[in-house]
């Protein structure tokens, strides 16, 4: 299945602005994140810590709704889902 990923600000510069990732059916959010970690490559340290966990300030959304850290391993994605990943907001 395909999941769209939108990254913003510094994370967009690392991951690209609008990418599509292929995941096995039934993949959870954590699977998508490890795919993003591979895409980030050398710069993944800005988004993930040494153990591959999301850094504290990273915000994650699925279809426009905030995803909690505690749900990363259980939230099953569906084909066509939109995942957004971004640093703390700074508008206004």
């Amino acid at each position, binding site marked *: 299945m395909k999941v769209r990923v939108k990254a*913003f600000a510094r994370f*967009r510069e690392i991951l690209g602005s609008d990418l599509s990732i292929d995941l096995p059916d039934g993949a959870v959010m954590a699977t998508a994140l490890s795919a993003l970690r591979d895409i980030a490559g050398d710069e993944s340290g800005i988004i993930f810590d040494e153990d591959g966990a999301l850094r504290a300030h990273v915000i994650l959304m699925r279809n*426009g709704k905030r995803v909690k850290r505690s749900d990363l391993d259980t939230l099953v994605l569906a084909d066509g889902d939109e995942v957004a990943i971004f640093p*703390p907001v*700074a*508008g206004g």
Partner: protein
Amino acid sequence: MISITRDVIDAGAMIEAAKRPGMGALVTFCGAVRDDGGIERIELEAYEEVAVRELEKIRDEAMREFPIESVDIVHRIGSLFVGETILLVIVGAGHRKEAFAASEFIIDRLKQTVPIWKKEFYRDGERWVPGEAGGQG
């Protein structure tokens, strides 16, 4: 009106459009690009659909919390020079106290929860403006 725009924001037109017969006070907040140690321009980007929805939520919350008559919020994105308007918030109310209180409430919330980011460009470099951690979504 709630919107994210790439166009120049016309404060005067928006204030006139916001007026209703019951309003004695309209408080307008204009956030502008500040020349803060040699900034030449900034670039703003937004997670647009979510940002608009979040602004609508803030407007609805302000309308519930304060006895006001209207809230308009326009946030600009794209490339802006020093002095250009980034954000315009207009609160219309019968009386001024509520209009001021609601304006400050809206801007504080906006800075915490609306997915918009700023990059500053200096003569000799660039940097992403650090955001306010937590709260959004």
